[in-house]
């Protein structure tokens, strides 16, 4: 057993330890410690990714040396490593760029608790990424919910508490349904570890009379994770949650937390149930329809939004719809496109959520469109980063969003089912047009000359130390976005290899 086999477990244990440690540190020290330890985790996960790529296979780490099916397991492959790396990089960028607002939004004495919650959230995300046990997935899913609620209510204004309560209620409904789905799957298969569960479900599915029972269990579990990840029609909690949180929390919740739930859904589908069994159930078709509805309804709601944060939040609902549409295609190419969209959306949305507060800061602390006029001139860097995110969301070539949309179109063509090709192409066309409508409208507004403030033309770029974190995070996220756009084939190849390890 190589030393690297311990690294996934280290990422969970270190995060738990850091969560406790940060409670004892002062605010700024907790922030610096969190940045240092997140960097260490990025190093550890990069080693795991390199190892799995070099050996060409995943590895299983039996917890406490108890072998399957009795013990608990960690499984690390290419896909898990890539997603863990994505989560950690975005967490790091959110802390770097969001610290300016964390200082504004909360008392100095409470900042350490915020970082403590972020570390516990990292532990939950890492555990959900690596685990091979569906019940462990449930436990850390609840920890993720609690920590998400914690980082939401740190901004002590009435609306955040109300948003947190609504978020918690929806998440509790989702958790309850997920747990019920897990219990029913355990009842059917007799296993909680994903691979033995898949073998058991596959043998059950050979008898067509057991398909309704499997569909019921997987359906309940899917609704649970759908509610938590913001699938249409359960997306209405998103604008309040993402819009009222401090920017670092908005970025983390939108870009990472919802993806954590989606990753668990992917793992359950591919590793615990199996694509062939899923294709015999009506669940994929329902997800396909809901995904397309989400793409359109999310975008229409974004057009009607009066504030930029709500527009971006509704846009998230539309982008989550793309992911469910990809899953709903029910093919490996569809899953690949959906996973690529996870990467593209996470990178782009965190850039947008971390940038808009700077535009608002340059516009009298208002996020309303009317106040944002000319903000791209008043804060050129924020304007630039917003434009990168917006162009990626619309699907302009060179950026990640374009590659994701192209992959969805290719996945639809590869199904060779004419009605699916027609529906996907039409949905992509309509959704891209709607995305362009509200993002280009916003870009025009932020680069229009402001009549209100009377300030015209670009301000000279000045280096401000408090902006260093935003500049580093913005440049990093922009670079990753462009890399995903230009070298999408490299990422899709890695996703393909990762999915191959799952099957």
């Amino acid at each position, binding site marked *: 057993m190589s030393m690297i086999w311990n690294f996934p477990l280290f990422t969970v244990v270190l995060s738990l330890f850091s969560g406790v440690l940060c409670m004892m540190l002062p605010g700024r020290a907790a922030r610096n410690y969190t940045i240092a330890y997140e960097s260490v985790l990025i190093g550890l996960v990069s080693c795991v990714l390199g190892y799995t790529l070099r050996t060409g296979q995943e590895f299983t780490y039996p917890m406490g040396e108890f072998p399957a099916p009795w013990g608990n397991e960690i499984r690390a492959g290419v896909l898990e490593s890539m997603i863990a790396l994505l989560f950690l990089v975005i967490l790091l960028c959110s802390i770097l760029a969001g610290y300016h607002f964390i200082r504004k939004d909360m008392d100095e004495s409470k900042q350490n608790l915020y970082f403590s919650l972020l570390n516990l959230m990292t532990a939950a995300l890492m555990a959900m990424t690596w685990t091979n046990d569906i*019940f462990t997935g*449930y*436990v850390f899913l*609840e920890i993720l*919910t*609690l920590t998400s*609620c914690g980082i939401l*209510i740190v901004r002590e*204004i*009435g*609306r955040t*508490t*109300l948003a*947190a*309560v*609504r978020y*918690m*209620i929806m998440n*509790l*409904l989702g*958790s*309850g*349904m997920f*747990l*019920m789905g897990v*219990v029913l799957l*355990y*009842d059917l298969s007799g296993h*909680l570890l994903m691979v033995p569960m898949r073998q058991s479900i596959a043998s059950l599915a050979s008898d067509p009379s057991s398909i309704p029972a499997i569909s019921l269990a997987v359906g309940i579990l899917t609704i649970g994770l759908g509610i938590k990840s913001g699938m249409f029609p359960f997306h209405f909690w998103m604008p309040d949650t993402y819009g009222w949180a401090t920017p670092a929390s908005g970025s983390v919740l939108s870009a990472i937390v919802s993806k954590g739930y989606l990753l668990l859904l992917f793992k359950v589908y591919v590793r615990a149930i199996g694509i062939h069994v899923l294709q015999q159930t009506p669940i994929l078709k329902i997800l396909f329809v809901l995904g397309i509805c989400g793409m359109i309804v999310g975008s229409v709601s974004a057009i009607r939004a009066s*504030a930029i944060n709500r527009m971006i939040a509704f846009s998230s609902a539309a982008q989550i719809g793309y992911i469910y549409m990809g899953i709903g295609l029910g093919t490996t190419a569809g899953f690949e496109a959906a996973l690529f969209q996870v990467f593209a959306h996470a990178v782009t949305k965190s850039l947008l959520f971390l940038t808009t507060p700077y535009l*608002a800061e340059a516009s009298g*602390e*208002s*996020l*309303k469109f009317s106040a944002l006029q000319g903000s791209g001139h008043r804060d050129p860097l924020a304007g630039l980063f917003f434009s990168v995110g917006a162009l990626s969301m619309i699907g302009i070539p060179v950026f990640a969003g374009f590659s994701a949309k192209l992959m969805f179109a290719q996945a639809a063509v590869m199904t060779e089912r004419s009605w699916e090709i027609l529906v996907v192409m039409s949905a992509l066309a309509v959704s891209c047009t709607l995305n362009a409508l509200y993002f280009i409208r916003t870009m025009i507004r932020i680069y229009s000359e402001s009549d209100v403030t009377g300030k015209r033309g670009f301000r000279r770029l000045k280096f401000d130390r408090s902006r260093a974190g935003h500049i580093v995070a913005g440049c990093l996220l922009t670079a990753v976005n462009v890399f995903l756009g230009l070298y999408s084939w490299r990422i899709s190849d890695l996703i393909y290899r990762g999915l191959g390890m799952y099957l």
Partner: protein
Amino acid sequence: MIAGFVEHYEEMAAVILFAVGFSTLLFHKNLIRKLIGMNIMDTGTFLLLASMGYIRGRKAPIIENGVQEVSAYINPIPAGLVLTGIVVSVSVTAVMLSLSVRLYRRYHTLDLDRIYILSRHEEEDR
């Protein structure tokens, strides 16, 4: 069909509890009632788990008189899962209660619809 319901009365009770809890959590406006609904929903799931693990005529999984055959004991895993689930449920309830207290201190009501209306009167944006 009725015979099937009678035979699986524990599972039926669990499903009814889950449905009652789910609908209370989803549709009630009062925060405390929503919380009670959440606990009823979780109880339904735990009852289902416990009933799955119990096998009539078998004993608790503690080795007695040197009997080591698996067939002599009930399945211990669901009981472990129920315990873990209860811990999670208690933690979530505590967080939700603290949020309810915070909302009540600010708006002097636990009716979510009223709280929403009151919050809309507050400043819309930063």
